C-alpha cells in the first residue's frame, strides 16, 4: 500500500520551495505587529521543512502502521 507520508512530504516540499523562490524574487512584506515579514519565505520554509520531515519518516520507519 502507498505510504501516505511520501505524497504529503513531496507536496509540501514543492509548495515550500515555490514559496521561498517566489518570496526572494518578489520581496513583498506583510506587517506583523510592529515589525514585518516576508510571509512567502517564512511560511514556505516551514512548509518545506514539514515536507522534509514527512519524507524522512518514511526512511527511518518503514512500518507506518502507528
Amino acid at each position, binding site marked *: 500500500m*502507498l505510504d501516505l507520508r511520501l505524497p504529503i512530504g*513531496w507536496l*509540501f516540499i514543492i509548495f515550500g520551495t515555490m514559496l521561498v523562490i517566489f518570496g526572494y524574487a518578489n520581496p513583498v512584506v*506583510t506587517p*506583523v*505587529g510592529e515589525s514585518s515579514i516576508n510571509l512567502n519565505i517564512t*511560511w514556505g520554509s*516551514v512548509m518545506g521543512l514539514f515536507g522534509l520531515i514527512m519524507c524522512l519518516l518514511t526512511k527511518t520507519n518503514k512500518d507506518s502502521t502507528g
Partner: protein
Amino acid sequence: MNIGVLDYSIIGIYFVFVLGIGYALKKQMVHSEDFFLSGRSIPSWITGLAFISANLGAIEVMGMAANGAEYGIMTTHFYWVGAIPAMVFLAVFMMPFYYSSRIRSVPEYLKLRFNEPTRAFNAVSFAVMTVLMSGINMYAMALVFKLLLNWSMTASILVSAAVVLAYTILGGLTSSIYNEVLQFFLVLFGLLPLPLIALANIGGWDTMMQKLPPGFGHMWAQTATANNPMGVDWIGIVSGLGFVLSFGYWCTDFLVIQRAFAAKNLNAAQRTPLIAAFPKVFFPAITILPGMLALLVIPELGSNTTNYSYNMTMPLLLSKYYPTGMLGIGLTAMMASFMSGMAGNITAFNTVWTYDIYQSYIAPNKSDDHYLWIGRAATAIGIIVSVLTAYLVMGFPSIMDYMQMIFSFFNAPLFATFLLGMFWKRATPWAAFWGLVCGTFAAIIHWYITYAGYHSYPSVMAGNFWRSTYAWLVCFVITVVLSFFTKQKPLEELKGLVWGLTDPAIVEVLPWYKKPKILAAIVLVATIALNIVFW
C-alpha cells in the same frame, strides 16, 4: 483580488497530487470491501486524521469563522461541548459494538439489533442526508471562487465535482481517506498564519477582547438566560447541542464512523475518534479566532452585501493578509476542505446505497464485481445529485442553518434509537422503528411550525437546538413505551450488539499512549480546562 500565475500553479499541483493518489490506489481496489471499507487495513493515525478531515468541510472553515464573527467565543460550544465529549463516548462505549459486529455500515447495525424496516428507513434517510450535505461544500466552493477568482458558480461547482468524482471513483474509500489526511495538513498550514498575523496586528489577545462587543469573550458566563450573542441559554446548549445534536452526529453519522471502520483492528478503530479529538480541541484557533479578529480588521463584515456576509469571513481575511503565493496556499486549503467534506459524504453515500439499499432490496446475491461496479456508479450518481443540491443550498440565507436543520431531522432522533439499542436490551425492533419514524416527523412538524410563524425562537440556532431536543425526546419516549407492548428479540441474537451481552474482550497489552481510556481521559481533561479558562 490579485491572483497570480503562481497561485494557479499551486492549485494545479494540488489537483495533480489528489488525482495521483487516486490513481496509485486504483489497482488495489480488487474487491468491494477494498472499495467501501479500505479492506479494514488503514493505520489509526491516518483514519484518525481522516475522521476529523471528513468533517472539516465548508461548515467548519467558512461556517465556524462566520459564527466566530457573529457570536464570539460562544461558538467554541460547537467544539468543547458539541464535539469532544461525543467523540470520546463513541470511542470508549460505542465503537466496540460497531467494530466487533463486523458490520459494513451504520444502518446494518440497526438491521442486526432491530429489524429490516428500521435499517431501510435509516438507510434511505441517510442517503438523502449525505447528498443534501454534500451540496453545501460545492456551494461554498463556488461562493469563494466567484468572489476570489471571478469564476462562475456553475464552473466552480463542476470543476470541484469532477475532481472529487475522479479520485473517489478510482481509489474508493482509501483514496478518499488518504486525500482527507493530505487535505488536513493543507488546511492546517494554509490557515494557521491568519490568526497569528491578525492577532499581532491588533495588539494581542487582551486588546482584541477589549475591542470586541460585550459577551464575545465568554462561553458560559452569560448563558443563565438567552440574552447572549447566540440567543440560547445553557439548558438549550447542553441538551440541544451538547447532547442530542453532538452525540447524534458524532456517534451515529456513517460519514465519520466509516473512517473508523477502515481501521485494522478494534483498538485502532477506538483510537480513531480520539486521535481526531486532539487536533479538534485546538481547531477553534484556526476557525473561530480568525472570525473574531475579522470583526475588528474588516469593518464592513456582516453588512448585507453578499461579498461582506459573515460567510465570507475566511476568504476576506485571506485576501487581506496573504500575498501572491501564500494566497494560492490559502485558496488550496479552502478547496481542500470543501473537497474532503464532499468526498466524505459521497463515500458514505455509495456504501450505504450499495450495501443497505441495492444489495438488500434491489439486487441481492450478485457477484462481488457487480457490487464494486455499482459502488463506482453510485459515486457518480451521488456527485451528480450533489451538484443539484448545491443549487438548493443557495436558497438558504445561512449554510449553518441549513446543516443544523438537516441534522435535527435525521441525526437527532437516530441517536435515541442507538442509545436504547446499544444500552437497553429490552428495546424491541418495532418500537425502535416507530420511535425513529415519529422522531423524524416530530422534527419536520416542529420545523414547519417555526417556518410558518406559529412559534418563534430568539435565534435560528436556538430553534435548531430545541427541535433536536424534541425530536430526540419523541423518539426516546415512543421507543421505550412501545418496547413494553411489542416482542423483544431473543437474547442470543443480541450477543455482541448490546451492553451486558458481550463476551469479555481479549485484553491487548499496549503502551499507555495507545490505550483508548487513557487518551480519552487526557482529551477530556484538556476540554474541561478550556471550558474553565474561557468560562
